[in-house]
């Protein structure tokens, strides 16, 4: 594979893939917070 194709693929898929993965994880975190809501007693 030539460097040009390799570089462009890494930049586009790498940046996009990282952003997409963390976005999915942030959605999971929001869902977790809704499924297991924080109760005030936990802070005590």
């Amino acid at each position, binding site marked *: *594979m030539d*460097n040009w194709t*390799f*570089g*462009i*693929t*890494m*930049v586009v*898929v*790498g*940046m996009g*893939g*990282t*952003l997409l*993965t*963390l*976005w*999915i*994880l*942030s*959605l*999971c*975190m*929001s869902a*977790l*917070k809704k499924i*297991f*809501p*924080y*109760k005030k007693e*936990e*802070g005590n």
Partner: protein
Amino acid sequence: MLEAILSGLNGLVAGFTNLHWSNPIMIIVGLILLYLGIKKDFEPLLLVPIGFGCILVNIPLAGLMEEGGFLKIIYDAGVITEVFPLLIFVGIGAMTDFGPLLENPKIFLLGAAGQFGIFLTLALALVLGFKQLEAVSIGIIGACDGPTAIYVTSQYAPHLLGAVSVAAYSYMSLVPVFQPPIMRWLTTKEERKINMGVVRKSASKTTKIIFPLVVTVIGGLIAPKGLPLLGTIMLGNLMKECGVVSRLTKASENEIANIVTLLLGISIGATMDGRVFLKYQTLIILALGFLAICLDTACGVLFGKLMKILTGGKINPLIGAAGISAYPMSARVVQKEGQRYNPKNYLLMHAMGANTGGQVGSVMAAAVMLSILKGMGVI
């Protein structure tokens, strides 16, 4: 008789006569690293063993990095096998509180933006003529995360390990120096004054326990090649959050992390043999590494500006600078910078959220990168 005496004396000066011109220079480099660690307090836990390892390996004829040499044994056992960075990750996971991130999950995206410098620098390294896997290893300096950089480089460009790891660790400690000018350059005074309010505790204990499991499974399914990195950091965090294995948690964040840091540091220093290290290429790698971390900061702040617009001005773009893995230095830099323009501003916990997002982000970026390489058949 005289011949035997002369031979004996010759043995005592052999170290001097075999000194390569690069060895004294590297001994001075080792001393500078020791000075930075001891006197300036720049990542002393790593720079002290790295500096000493650098001095050791530049003394000729000791054979410390030759077959059977004690540094070679440590290097082969822990760096080549990637065990050292992974054990350190268990400790990092055990030390990290993802609470601030869980309070505001959308801040996770800043942890992704803070890794864009990795990929942009990779492209630049290719333009400058580095081979593909060398460019990957140079780009990963932008993860601002020593163990990740060592993990990737030891696999794919072990000859660059010394330069990459020294760059990763020393730039991490320089975060308070180079981030503020970039933050000021990319934001307006009004943006820096934005008050994000108080972080309210909203994540339950169950959420905190399930979080590392979800990240491991989903992250591992998306980027399986990076699962060792992701799995170890999340194992450490699970042990911390579940609270039932405090002995293991304490061992991970203290004894294991300390021993491995010492062995890792000294073996990284041992890769800095002057004959291999002192090359024009090393200077370019150091410059590209610096650029990578600056680009991370710039991308994080610019993404913070985008989030500010999308949230109707609720996000202070400064916290984007904390989307890198230098924990908790960059969060403290953000707090300091925010208070400089609005003394009532308390951005620390928001920045901590972005910062822990950056920790996961850097590991995820490396995992994504390795999986793309695997997918393209490069590795």
